[in-house]
């Protein structure tokens, strides 16, 4: 092993979903750790991991119950002062791990945390880690006890990295946790929740306009809730709009507990597919959306970009707000080339691999996590523009955009915004080259 492993889209498609080579399967090899994979190895180190996500409940605080190592990177999150004040740590020592005696201290620790806060927290989120996963701790029971003792809602958040590829990965589980405090309310027909992200959609997303055109007056997202009361009002929603499949489990739980049904939309960059999705959403909610102006605007942005910068050749990463394979397919269908994709191929995106293989069979697919990426050398790559924070790491000299901002792009507005920032990056690169 002295060069980075890659496979062309054509070869991969020919192998089929069952024939994905072991080099692309994270369970078959060690996981390479480079800055390109930081978001994978430590979701909390950047963006939203379980710890930061658990604090999505307005006014809540988090008590991390774990060995010190699990809380270490929280210092980085704590750079943001408002977050730092919301994290507390009950550290486990070797004896705790062996005997589980730390569980008896949790109710008292929760009370001490609440007493130390200037303002009483709305809830205490207890974050537990691989240790309690292996110990088989019944944290629901511990939380009930702590809640009775401290007089505050206490909710478990399972940061079980060991179960990352299991039925209930940590980021799926935490989405259920943050909505678990909602209590039944009378439904309001003109109210809807957007589930999926821990930060709001970009304000310019047409989704808001389209929903309002269908008579929806109140659109709530947890990240826009100013306080606990507003958060609780999410229970009145007529339906939930799920924009990230990791929120599917939370939506199912809300349907079961509060009777709120859900509709799921995917984040896409192919404008015809976006249009199709809106048509189906309209059918589901009994409305006909006029999305043509938004689509036109997005497609014009793409054609303006192409006119101005020509047929670029992209390298697309996976540390970004998109499915790298769907985004790559969109770029190819819009007349651009994609020479490389750094992504994790799985059941849900193999369909895009097949379509890419038909249009651009030579596109190379790499796995960020493969140990062979230690030897990655992009110097012979034909790409001239990069998208994704990981792709930028591999091609530091090329113009590109990380496209992983916290404000979430969605729909046509997301497409337009992407090509907008790409245009800016290329202009700046040209300018600095002069």
């Amino acid at each position, binding site marked *: 092993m002295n060069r980075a492993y890659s496979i062309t889209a054509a070869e991969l498609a020919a192998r089929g979903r069952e024939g994905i080579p072991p080099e692309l399967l994270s*369970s078959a*090899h060690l996981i390479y*750790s480079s800055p390109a994979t930081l978001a994978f*190895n430590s979701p909390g180190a950047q963006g939203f991991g379980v710890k930061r996500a658990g604090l999505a409940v307005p006014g809540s605080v988090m008590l991390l119950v774990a060995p*010190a190592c699990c809380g270490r990177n929280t210092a980085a999150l704590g750079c943001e002062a408002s977050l730092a004040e919301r994290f507390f740590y009950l550290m486990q020592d070797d004896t705790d791990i062996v005997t589980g005696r730390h569980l008896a201290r949790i109710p008292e620790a929760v009370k001490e945390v609440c007493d130390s806060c200037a303002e009483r927290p709305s809830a205490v989120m207890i974050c537990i880690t*691989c240790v309690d996963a*292996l110990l088989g701790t019944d944290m629901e029971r511990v939380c009930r006890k702590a809640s009775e003792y401290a007089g505050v809602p206490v909710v478990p958040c399972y940061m079980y990295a060991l179960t990352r590829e*299991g039925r209930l990965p940590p980021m799926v589980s935490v989405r259920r946790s943050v909505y678990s405090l909602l209590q039944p309310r009378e439904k309001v027909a003109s109210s809807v929740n957007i589930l999926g992200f821990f930060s709001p959609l970009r304000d310019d997303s047409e989704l808001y306009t389209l929903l309002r055109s269908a008579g929806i007056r109140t659109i709530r997202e947890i990240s826009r809730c100013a306080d606990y009361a507003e958060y609780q009002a999410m229970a009145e929603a007529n339906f939930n709009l799920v924009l990230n499949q990791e929120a599917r489990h939370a939506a199912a739980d809300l349907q079961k507990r509060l009777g709120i049904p859900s509709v799921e939309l995917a984040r896409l960059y192919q404008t015809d597919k976006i249009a199709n999705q809106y048509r189906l959403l309209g059918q589901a909610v009994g409305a006909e959306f006029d999305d043509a102006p938004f689509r036109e605007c997005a497609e014009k942005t793409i054609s303006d970009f192409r006119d101005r910068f020509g047929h670029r050749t992209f390298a697309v990463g996976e540390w970004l707000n998109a499915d790298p394979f769907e985004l790559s397919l969109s770029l190819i269908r819009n007349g651009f080339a994609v020479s490389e994709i750094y992504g994790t191929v799985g059941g849900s995106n193999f369909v895009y691999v097949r379509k890419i293989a038909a249009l651009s069979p030579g596109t190379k697919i790499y796995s960020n996590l493969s140990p062979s990426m230690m030897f990655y050398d992009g110097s012979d790559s034909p790409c001239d523009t990069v998208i994704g924070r990981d792709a930028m790491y591999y091609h530091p000299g090329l113009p590109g955009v990380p496209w992983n901002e916290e404000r979430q792009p969605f729909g046509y507005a997301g497409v337009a915004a992407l090509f907008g920032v790409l245009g800016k990056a290329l202009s700046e690169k040209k300018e600095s080259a002069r």
Partner: protein
Amino acid sequence: MKSLLKHLSPFAPDQSGAVSALFDFGGLIVICDAGGCTGNICGFDEPRWFIRRSAVFSAGLRDMDAILGRDDKLVSKLQSAMDGSGLKFSAIIGTPVPAIIATDFKALKRMAEKRTGLPAITVPTTGTRHYDRGASDAWLELFKTFATERHAIVPGTVGILGASPLDFPSLDAGELLSAALVAEGWKSVRCYGMGAGLDDVRTASAVAKNLVVSPAGLAAAKYLLATFGTPYEVRCPWLPPQMLDALPSLAGKKTLVIHQQFAANAVRDAVLNLDASSQITVASWFMMEPDYMRENDFHIESEEAFIEAVANGGYDAVVCDSRLRTVLPRTQAFHIIDFPHFAVSGRLFDEVK
């Protein structure tokens, strides 16, 4: 509650210390975890990881690996990553997961050596202790594994033990420490872990003396003394310029210095050189070696104990990483001097404002 942190976040753990000690030697490092520990170590505790490619890997453990204890699978993955890579050894670093399932690290070492045909180091860190314990264990294991032959002593050659960015928060710390010793008249300096290579470790017995600059290096120094008779001295020959500039303001004052013990001792020595009447107390959250403590020096056991000690100590000044400022009693007027400690705050000296 002793184990509750209400103001601070946890310090660098033992597994980070172990990786930091081994990072510079050209081996393949496998962190025996599910992924999160690796992210924390690399993304937060190892500043060198961001500026150069390194062979650091996560074992990528999943629940069934932990439940079934699939060590053979881990070693197969390790062998596959080592094959043709040109890396010189492998190292397997513990985390809470192997600690809970009682992984036999000695067996892992034997299995890895057999499969790869190359030396392997295992450090059974648990994630519950501080970085210096892990670094100490890793240094010791490194020298036990590679420094096996006696070499003729090369006069004028000195080794530095215990240097890492976690203790000396600068990417140039190895060069700065070495330069300070060259200025003292040493002809050749080996700063293990920050500049010196694996061949320097193999010929560690050739140095005339070792200098131990943090408590993490002491166990290895004692091992080299016992094995080869190499004498050692505990001393920190370099302090950052910002710290040196601040020393005159501490002369004659009652000061609490908080850092790794040997760096804090160096501050004390420097202040006492300026004014012997100064009252300097050294404290640390980390290892405090009794042989190098003076009266009133203390180990900080908990956040609560720290607050109480500072509140009742009657200090005029506190020298510490400014991250600790959040815990210092706000009712008291201290002169606070920032002395960054990467293991505490993840800040480098260069980031001091």
